[in-house]
């Protein structure tokens, strides 16, 4: 019954979305405001309808209605309620349903805007969002229906169908298979929704961009409307990526947080193009340049959002052949191709209208440096894209599968990241329009000189790896430049308005949140860079098999294997847990408990590390194996991860910075745009007074 209600509401939403898209386009072309209004109502209706569908699914999951195939495949009696709810995105069809639900929420949020303000753009926004929603819903309704039930024929064969096929009886399993153990982690509970929210909210700027192209409103209005959407999308994507990294570090048990796995890269690629977009829209707002480029970037981001969902949902990664057998793979492929071609065709039609209002004045101007930043981000994107699709191409054309692993990505993107860090240090001090070497040099010399101390000191303390010295110099340089910017701005306010320094700093950031929020993000990146360089270049590891009481040494750390215990848990796991004492420089600093969980139902082992964590480093212990009879010997793998916690701390700072930049303004945005623009432009000129 509930399953029928859920399915029916999905079908209804699908039809409403199609109607909304059609009516909006018709109303806009024929200038029929009442038809557009009807389309807006359709748009607003999608969210409540989708909510009925999603809540039905959640109800089925929570109450354990195992006759529904999806429920049986992702939940089990032993699972607590919160995990049953999160099982909504624990499988293929459920996550597509979840995606559509979020899409409808964001689309409806657009529908609640003051409609009169951008009358010509909004109908086309409805068209784009509703087509996207209808596409995803279409897949749910026709190919990946999460509401299908299990039926048994007289000969014992099991069928899946929504309604009872003739000659069958309902099959109601007593228990389900349960959620993939890898997903039973708090990080994994929040990580997919964050990524999906990021994915879905990037659809909105894209929709406005397309609306601008269709209507010929080629000024920067679409960018100004969607500025916050973009930041919110970016915030969620960043959060999703950071949480995903943390989850990998805590659960996957390989001593790291980022493995250049195609699934990770699928979520990383829209982030890359989105980050490039966030920077380059500033050039259009301030200088009226790069209009084509911004369009290309948002089209690319949208395509990568769909591509990311496609990569993770179509089965193409495991094999090209699995892809051709899956129903939704080719559909995805077609949809990406179609939207990409249509978007580019629109862009080409408006090409002449999008000419820049200014020329690139100097290679040191801020816009030139931003352009360079964009090229580097796109460079990294190209590397990632190539790495992800090369195995597919290889399999398709030569029949041999290949792996493209971390060594390739690290070597290919390392220099590009270094280039980005360098730009992050220089660009904030260069001015829009024209900057001479002299001006830039005057602003840069002090942080530059101070930052050189870092590699020198490190060198004398025994760091000889040139790449690490370069990396830490760059991080120090960016950090100092950014702090210097805060200091100069606060000092100017302090002198001019005789505010106390902390107050001046607070007001400075408050008045120009986008800029100073951006700087906070840069500081977060610097901190993350410290951690990434630390673990990438100075991680050490060792492995050994020990009898009880024996020791294993790694650098300054020594671990002693104290004991091992094994037991079954009520939720269907067998836990093997070792007790390990950790000594640092000869002193006992604590105990850690590395363990191996074996899930009976899915026959999956999970290696959960025991970690002794400080700001300086992590001592990360894995239980690799043990003798089955008694606790005689056990094998441990040890990692020493220097500075890794700066990755998480930096991530936190990064998110705070994004929140500062994205926090809603109190004053209404559109009024006195010109004057605000002028003031901002003069404020940033030379990066001097603010």
């Amino acid at each position, binding site marked *: 019954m509930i399953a029928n209600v859920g399915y029916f509401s999905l079908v209804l939403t699908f039809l409403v979305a199609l109607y909304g898209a059609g009516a909006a386009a018709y109303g806009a072309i024929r200038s029929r405001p009442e038809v557009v209004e009807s389309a807006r109502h359709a748009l607003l209706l999608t969210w409540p309808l989708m909510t009925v569908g999603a809540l039905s699914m959640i109800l089925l999951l929570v109450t354990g209605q195992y006759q529904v195939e999806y429920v049986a495949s992702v939940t089990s009696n032993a699972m607590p309620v919160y995990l049953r709810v999160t099982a909504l995105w624990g499988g293929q069809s459920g996550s597509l349903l979840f995606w559509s639900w979020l899409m409808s929420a964001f689309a409806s949020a657009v529908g609640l805007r003051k409609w009169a303000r951008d009358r010509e753009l909004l109908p086309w926004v409805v068209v784009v969002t509703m087509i996207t929603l209808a596409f995803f819903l279409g897949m749910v309704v026709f190919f990946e229906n999460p509401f299908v039930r299990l039926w048994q024929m007289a000969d014992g064969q099991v069928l899946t169908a929504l309604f009872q096929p003739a000659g069958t009886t309902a099959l109601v399993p007593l228990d389900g298979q349960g959620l993939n153990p890898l997903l039973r982690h708090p990080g994994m509970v929040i990580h997919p929704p964050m990524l999906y929210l990021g994915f879905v909210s990037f659809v909105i700027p894209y929709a406005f961009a397309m609306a601008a192209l269709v209507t010929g409103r080629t000024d920067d209005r679409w960018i100004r409307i969607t500025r916050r959407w973009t930041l919110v999308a970016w915030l969620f994507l960043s959060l999703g990526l950071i949480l995903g990294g943390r989850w990998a570090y805590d659960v*996957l*048990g*390989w*001593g790291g947080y980022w*493995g250049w*796995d*195609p699934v990770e890269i699928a979520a990383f690629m829209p982030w890359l193009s989105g980050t490039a977009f966030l920077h380059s829209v500033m050039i259009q707002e301030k200088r009226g340049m790069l209009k084509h480029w911004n369009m290309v970037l948002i089209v690319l981001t949208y395509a990568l959002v769909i591509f990311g969902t496609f990569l993770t949902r179509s089965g193409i*990664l*495991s094999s090209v052949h699995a892809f051709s057998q899956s129903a939704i793979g080719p559909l995805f492929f077609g949809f990406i191709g179609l939207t990409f071609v249509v978007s580019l065709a629109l862009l080409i039609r408006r090409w002449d209208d999008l000419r820049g209002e200014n020329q690139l004045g100097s290679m040191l101007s801020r816009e030139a440096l931003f352009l360079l930043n964009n090229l580097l981000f796109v460079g990294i994107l190209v590397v990632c894209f190539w790495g992800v699709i*090369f*195995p597919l191409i*290889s399999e398709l054309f030569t029949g*041999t*599968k*290949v*792996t*493209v*692993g*971390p*060594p*390739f990505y690290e070597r290919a993107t390392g220099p590009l990241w270094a280039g980005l860090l360098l730009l992050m240090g220089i660009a904030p001090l260069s001015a829009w329009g024209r900057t001479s070497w002299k001006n830039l040099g005057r602003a840069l010399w002090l942080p530059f000189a101070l930052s050189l101390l870092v590699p020198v000191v490190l060198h004398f303390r025994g760091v000889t790896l040139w790449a690490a010295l370069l990396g830490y110099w760059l991080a120090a340089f960016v950090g100092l430049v950014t702090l210097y910017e805060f200091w100069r701005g606060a000092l100017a306010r302090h002198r001019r308005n005789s505010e106390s320094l902390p107050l001046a700093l607070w007001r400075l950031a408050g008045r120009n949140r986008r800029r100073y929020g951006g700087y906070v993000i840069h500081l977060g990146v610097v901190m993350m860079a410290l951690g990434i360089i630390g673990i990438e270049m100075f991680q050490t*590891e*060792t*492995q*050994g*098999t020990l009898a009880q009481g024996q020791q294993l040494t790694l650098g300054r750390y020594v671990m002693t294997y104290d004991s091992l215990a094994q037991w079954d848990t009520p939720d269907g796991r067998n836990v093997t847990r070792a007790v390990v004492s950790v000594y640092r420089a000869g002193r006992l600093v604590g105990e850690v408990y590395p363990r*191996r969980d074996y899930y009976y139902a899915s026959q999956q*082992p*999970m*290696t959960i590390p025991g970690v002794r964590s400080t700001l300086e480093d992590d001592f990360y212990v*894995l239980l*690799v*194996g043990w003798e089955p009879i008694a606790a005689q010997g056990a*094998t441990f*793998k040890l990692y020493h991860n220097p500075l890794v916690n700066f990755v998480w701390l930096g991530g936190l700072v990064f998110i705070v910075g994004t929140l500062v930049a994205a926090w809603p303004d109190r004053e209404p945005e559109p009024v006195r745009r010109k004057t605000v623009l002028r003031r901002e432009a003069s404020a940033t000129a030379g990066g001097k007074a603010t």
Partner: protein
Amino acid sequence: MMAKRRALWLVLPAFLGALLVLPAAAQTSEPTDDQVNAIAKNLYCPVCENVPLDVCPTQACAQWRATIRQMLAEGRSQEEIQQYFVEQYGARVLAAPRQWA
């Protein structure tokens, strides 16, 4: 003169033979886990996608590591071991396609 040269011909093969045997002899001791992992780190089994062999917890991967250990004990080099796995399971066991290295 002739005798000297003949002696050389006798010594040379013996010398070359010793060169071939010696490295193997030098490694007769049981390879350490770290030596095994150093090689496993750059290999991927076809089943556990994108999990490097040195950290993969599955039974199959444990057997691969045992194979590496045995080949190390026989004195085989890293290239030889990689080549063995490529021949057995295809190019996908390598972390990156050969041509890119």
